[in-house]
């Protein structure tokens, strides 16, 4: 029997956990060093690099842009995704599996290819504005999360509750808004959070879709990193980790983190 205190199992697990955590802790430490380049162990202590993060216009503008795009793309994915999931789970749609695959199809295409194709097909050929195309790309990234999570909870929800509302004279729309939505609320929030985090963190889709006045935070950091090697990147890493932790805390308070494991 393989026990929890099996020496080999414990040793490997400890090493793997160290491998997962230690690098992140090390980055946090390097953000406070006084040397002009990243050094570990650090010398001295300063908060200068955090101030320097906010002195980078690309980072500040990128953060705002990433926030806006992530919010807009997540909402758009819900607005388009929830009705189609409703149709697929509550109506007798022909070729249901085929539709399901269609709506999950963005996951079959490598993200960098989506960004590349959108740039070629929409920006160059159709002359769509860059910002709109960026939003479309992030919407494509988000839609499959909505389809998967909301479908799962619509299937689990008892259809009879909705039917009861219709019997008592409620319209289909009113029943959906007042009965169905509250019942699938948890999956809607979880889908929104997953969309938001993944859009906010995404690089490959935004890669081709940036211009002189349009840069997302991750691509801005990537650009900065290609020309500089100073603890500013460590400092913004710390801020991004705090951001992740805040998001996790928010989900934990609302739903429990298990909701995010259903990716």
């Amino acid at each position, binding site marked *: 029997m393989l026990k929890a205190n099996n020496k080999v199992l414990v040793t490997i697990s400890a090493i793997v956990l160290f491998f997962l*955590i230690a690098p992140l802790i090390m980055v946090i430490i390097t953000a406070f060093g006084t040397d002009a380049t990243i050094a*570990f162990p650090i010398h001295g202590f300063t908060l200068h690099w955090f101030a320097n993060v906010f002195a980078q216009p690309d980072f500040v503008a990128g953060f705002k842009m990433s926030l806006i795009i992530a919010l807009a793309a997540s909402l758009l994915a819900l607005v388009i995704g929830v009705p189609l999931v409703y149709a697929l789970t509550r109506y007798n749609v022909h070729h249901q599996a085929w*539709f399901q695959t269609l709506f999950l199809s963005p996951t079959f295409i490598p993200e960098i*290819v989506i960004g590349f194709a959108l740039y070629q097909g929409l920006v160059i050929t159709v002359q769509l504005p860059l910002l709109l195309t960026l939003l479309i790309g992030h919407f494509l990234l988000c839609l499959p999360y909505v389809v998967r999570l909301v479908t799962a909870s619509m299937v689990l929800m008892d259809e009879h509750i909705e039917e009861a509302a219709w019997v008592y004279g409620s319209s289909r729309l009113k029943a959906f808004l007042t009965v169905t939505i509250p019942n699938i609320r948890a999956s809607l929030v979880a889908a929104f959070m997953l969309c938001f985090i993944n859009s906010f963190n995404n690089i490959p889709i935004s890669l081709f879709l940036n211009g002189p006045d349009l840069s997302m935070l991750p691509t801005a950091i990537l650009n900065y990193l290609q020309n500089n090697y100073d603890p500013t990147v460590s400092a913004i890493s710390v801020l991004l980790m705090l951001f992740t932790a805040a998001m996790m805390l928010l989900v934990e308070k609302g739903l429990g983190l298990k909701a995010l494991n259903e990716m």
Partner: protein
Amino acid sequence: MKNRSAFLLLLPGVLAICLFLFFPLLQTIWPTLGGSGYSHFLHSGYNRNVLGRTLLIAVITTALALGLGLPLALWIARQKASVKSLLSVVILFPILTNAVVRNFTWIIILGKDGVLNKVLLGLHLTQHPVTLLYTNAAIVIGSVYLFLPIMVTSLIGSVDELNIEVEEAAAVLGAKPWTTLTKVIIPQLTTGILTGSILVFAGAMTAYTTPQLLGGNRHLVMSTLIYQQAMTLGDWNQASVVAVVLIIMTVIVMGLMRLVTRWLDRRPANA
């Protein structure tokens, strides 16, 4: 009437996918057909190298993530509920943290003046700094770091369903831990192992940030090759060819995953 509502509810989604995904993809794929793009791609030894590197990195990354992730998943599943939820936070945190941040940590560790080189020099294991960054190995390490948590999450689902009594039975019958692992535990985890492996494989094969930051310009993979062909060399047609080859590779991997899961679902429970 009923069909009409369903149609109206599905319409925005269908239109969005067709106009915003299929139309741009066709715009990318169409010009590459008929020309000499593909034969040109496959005849170049450089490109075949990139293709091979991409696949090799994906294979090694998947194997390492599985080898490291399985023991951790087994160990986590055997902990008390409180420890378990703490550990699941530790696993989830990296998944939700920006990939730039996670790759950046390895620049600090593997760089010429990096942490690892300082340790090696300090222990007199080497006289001169070793080139660790901007190598294939660096891409593999970064990819394992990036995808290991996803492997562990996929495995924990299956590990939680394991029936501990079967292991006890094996122990009573005299099986050593290693035999229990290979003959009793792993066969019950096929679904989790396959799902995790294919997720990691597809992810590692198409990732951009890791090879870009840790591989440098001399160790290109398919995704960084697309970017280089398009943005640095301005050869959009060749970039499209590389993109199509990468799509085909992904579709094959994802198709394989569907086949395997379907096959596992049909398999009788006691097989």
